[in-house]
């Protein structure tokens, strides 16, 4: 049987971000996948180098709307890593609260979209309705539903008022019964079992080989979580469990995300109940020369930022590595051999975030061509040849 190529995208109803997939199929079976990106590239790293250390926080927040806490969190940790400094405990708690609120809303968002892809629009509506409550809490705490602008190097920008805490706790408590119901509806549904179990399996070894991160790897049995492995914020202050499952299929990825939401609620409630007093901002005056790294566990996995300072008020270099960058290649392991009808949910199962990922785009003068690794090596060799000739070398 001949091979057929199915193009998907870049503008397609499946996901709200533009990206282009080519699925190579033999009959019903997907044998290969390739993807082309660059539709989301905005040059954030370069923009960040044009702004001051404090203003860059707002730029990195716009890397991705769903991870609008993770990137500033990792970035501020990278700046704080350049020179020895201490962030106050209250600021750490507030950061943890915002990060966990984001994790709950991100996981609910994924659950809703996954339901939508499967034709379970009820799950979509329920999950997003539930998500609104969390967004309300975030709005009370930070003033915005998304893009919270709470972070700054050295602390947080806004304090949490003590009179808001009981309202937030009440709202968080009110979503737990609905979340339990949603969990039962998803995990005990025989149709979803038939649809998701054994689909898009990534084995433990493949997760290690591809360096998968976050819930994608934890569903395959890799117990890897920055919050446990290298604690930051206030995560070492309280008891919580890392959710790890064994099978590595789409169903387990859903299980990990749903159960993680409960752990996040636990952390959120602990932090709100035990918020210590103190300053919220260390008031950094200037950043000495040096380099720093910051990594945190975003809803999708480990987000990594590298900042280099030359002693001025701007970063000399700012590098971002988002979790989806590591998770995207796992498609090669998960999608091959599955049917086209399962391709949608497998592509969605890693909770891809393309605007986080697109940090590099190589183009010619007209802004058209996109080079791949091989072309880049070729170009590099040609340049060396040219220079050799110019210098009259051997």
């Amino acid at each position, binding site marked *: 049987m001949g091979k057929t190529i199915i193009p998907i995208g*870049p*503008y*397609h*109803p499946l996901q*709200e*971000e*533009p990206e282009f997939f080519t699925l190579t199929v033999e009959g019903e079976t997907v044998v290969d996948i390739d993807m082309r990106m*660059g*539709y*989301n*590239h*905005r*040059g*954030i790293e*370069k*923009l960040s180098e*044009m702004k001051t250390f404090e203003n860059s926080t*707002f*730029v990195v927040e*716009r*890397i*991705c*709307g*769903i991870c*609008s806490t993770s990137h500033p969190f990792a970035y501020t940790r990278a700046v704080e890593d350049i020179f020895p400094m201490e962030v106050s405990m209250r600021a750490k708690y507030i950061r943890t609260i915002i990060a966990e609120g984001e994790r709950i809303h991100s996981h609910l*968002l994924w659950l*809703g979209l996954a339901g939508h892809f499967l034709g379970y629009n009820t799950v*979509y*509506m329920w999950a*997003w*309705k539930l998500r*609104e409550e969390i967004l309300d809490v975030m709005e009370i705490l930070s003033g915005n*539903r*998304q*893009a919270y602008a709470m972070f700054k190097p050295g602390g947080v920008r806004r304090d949490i008022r003590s009179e808001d805490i009981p309202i937030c706790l009440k709202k968080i408590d009110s979503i737990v019964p609905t979340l339990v119901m949603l969990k039962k509806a998803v995990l005990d549904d025989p149709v979803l079992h038939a649809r998701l179990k054994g689909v898009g399996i990534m084995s433990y070894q493949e997760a290690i080989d591809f360096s998968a991160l976050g819930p994608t790897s934890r569903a395959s049995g890799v117990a890897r979580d920055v919050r446990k492995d290298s604690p930051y914020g206030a995560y070492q202050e309280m008891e919580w469990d890392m959710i790890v499952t064994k099978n590595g299929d789409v169903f387990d990825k859903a299980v990990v995300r749903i159960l993680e939401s409960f752990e996040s609620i636990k952390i959120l409630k602990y932090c709100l109940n035990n918020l210590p007093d103190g300053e919220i901002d260390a008031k950094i005056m200037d950043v000495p020369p040096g380099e720093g790294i910051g990594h945190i566990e975003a809803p999708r996995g480990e987000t990594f930022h590298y900042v280099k300072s030359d002693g001025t008020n701007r970063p000399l270099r700012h590098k971002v590595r988002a979790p989806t960058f590591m998770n995207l290649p796992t498609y090669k392991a998960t999608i091959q051999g599955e049917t086209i009808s399962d391709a949608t949910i497998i592509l969605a199962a890693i909770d891809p*975030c393309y*605007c986080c990922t697109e940090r590099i*785009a190589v*183009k010619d003068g007209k*802004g058209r061509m996109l080079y791949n690794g091989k072309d880049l090596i070729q170009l590099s060799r040609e340049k060396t040849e040219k220079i050799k000739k110019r210098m009259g070398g051997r």
Partner: protein
Amino acid sequence: MSLKLKALLKSPWVFHLSTGSCNNCDIETLDCLTPRFDIERFGMLLVGSIKHADVLLVSGSCNRMSVERMKALFEQVPKPCLVVAIGTCAGSRGIFKDSYNCPVPLDKIIPVDVYIPGCPPKPEAIIAGAVKLIEKVGGTL
């Protein structure tokens, strides 16, 4: 008002186009469809194909890769078509105006009818923008 436009305003079908946005505006747009905001009561529906669309909802800062695809898509929309720019990026490029990959603002590429500012605009603002769009072209709700 032409009959076509009048018929269109009864239930404007929306196609959502992200031209390098950060997801925020896209998620808030999807949020409008969910139970709390429920924009479907105005007859608005998100459609999967550009050929079914009456309203083009554009978010994002129009990067170089997207501009050409956007022009191609705009040619395919059945006319008359109304264009809504969601978010600060689509309106004026906002924080990305100095970026090397976001050369021109959206309204220099295709004609825009309504701007909804905000980073991201709240779903309430998006609904208000939709109402303004309908009023602007002479319809009533």
